[in-house]
């Protein structure tokens, strides 16, 4: 009374069904579900690794902020100082002349020619005068001590009549400009 194996379509179905199921499961797993899972897994890992490397620590960021704030404060201070030294006027040339001409006159300079203009961010004062050497030095020192930024572009001295010196002076000062 041996165990006789069944035959026919039922046996075929029994044999094939697991293979069919395995094939379907592998197709779904490999091409849809597991592919999506591994893709998501890899994407999340990569993003996490990237963020781990890129995102700085709060302490480092606070230190960076403190450093930037110090830099900004220093720059603000320097900018305020620069603004204070620039000529902030609607007519910078006239402003420079109005500031320096009386000053030099008080130092004894006998002004013979004054010309002021404003061009390309600069106010320029071009003047000719007569003065002795001490008056020239004193006037130039007064110009150097001005709080407004003033540069001497040209300066010449030559003898004149009555024992005085004839002075040719061109000074310029930057005018206020916004970047």
């Amino acid at each position: 009374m041996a165990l006789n194996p069944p035959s026919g379509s039922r046996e075929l179905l029994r044999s094939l069904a697991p293979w069919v199921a395995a094939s379907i499961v592998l197709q779904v797993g490999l091409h849809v579900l597991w592919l999506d899972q591994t893709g998501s897994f890899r994407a999340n890992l990569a993003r996490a690794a990237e963020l781990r490397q890129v995102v700085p620590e709060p302490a480092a960021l606070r230190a960076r902020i403190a450093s930037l704030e110090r830099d900004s404060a220093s720059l603000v201070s320097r900018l305020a100082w620069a603004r204070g030294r620039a000529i902030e006027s609607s007519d910078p040339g006239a402003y420079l002349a109005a500031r320096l001409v009386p000053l030099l006159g008080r130092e004894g300079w006998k002004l013979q020619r004054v010309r002021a203009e404003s061009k390309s961010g600069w106010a320029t004062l071009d003047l000719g005068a007569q003065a002795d050497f001490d008056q020239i030095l004193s006037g130039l020192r007064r110009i150097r001590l001005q709080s407004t930024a003033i540069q001497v572009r040209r300066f010449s001295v030559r003898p004149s009549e009555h024992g005085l010196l004839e002075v040719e002076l061109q000074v310029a000062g930057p005018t206020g400009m916004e970047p």
Partner: protein
Amino acid sequence: MDQLLDLLGGLPRVALSPSHLLNGEVTTPYGQDPSPEAVEAAWRDLSGDRILPPWILLGRRDTPNGTVWRLSWCPPRGPLPASVEVALPEGLWALELLTGESGPEGWHLRILASPLGTWVGLWEGARCERLHGPHPSESGGVDRVRAIAARTGVVPTAEIRGVWSVPSGQDLRALAGSHPESDLLPTTESVRRGGIRADHAAFARILAILAAFATVTVGLGLVQAAAWSLRRSQDIRLESVQPLLDRVASLRKSRAVLRDSIWMRKDALAPNAAVDRILAGIARKIPDGASLQALALERSDSGWRVRTEASLSDWNQVQPFAQSLRAVPGVAKVVIASQARSGSGISAVLELEGTWP
């Protein structure tokens, strides 16, 4: 677990079942195995028209008339197990264990105590002549077999005791495979149960495939969840420092604007031109009796240049005067451009260069 693996492997379930042991013999031509027809004929001789039960081959003895096969018919005793595909008589396992024992060459008894009772077999050398059991007591079984042996003039000279062991599923399947004639189940029932078992095996295989699929999917899902958790933790960290990052970006932008503004106003940051100092420095170096006739100061490519015409009393004052001008702070270079007699004195043109103001 073993049962599940057996099911997945499509292996039949085999169990032992109680049965009677009706000893008999079949003679076949020398060297031939007993055919079912011969066994059935022997059974008919013994019990008439009763259905041929399964049988156990006990042993063989070659005689001049042919090969005499000793066997035991095993009609089932009681209901057969419902959840098996093969039911073997208990005596077959007892015979298997007793056959494995070694004994003397002559007639002897082999005794096996089992949870079911005591099995007693009559052996001649390695050949089993009879098997009886299970007996409630060993002495009863031994006495009976000795009495049966005495009727044929056999006197067992020794008693060998075997050791009982519970058969494993693998043992039983091996036993069923080597003794297909011993299955207590009817053929139709075996086929029916085998079909059901095959159905269950196919279904179990499908379930196992689905379980493997689910296991892999869940495993990957766990890994996926772990990766998501890692990313989420980094996202949370990013969110926590986002205000700080925004603040850094804002400050950087603000600093860039401030730098641009300062760059545009760099001329206002430069100190005022100190022409008076270089002029005073030059004046202090003019020797007695000398004078500067003209002085011009202007910017050059590398800084400033002063060109002056000095009126000196004699030639010997020119070089010391030029040398003294080199000592004026900020003067990098002094060149005597020309020197010539002018009236009663000497006129020298000098050029000074430096990085003033």
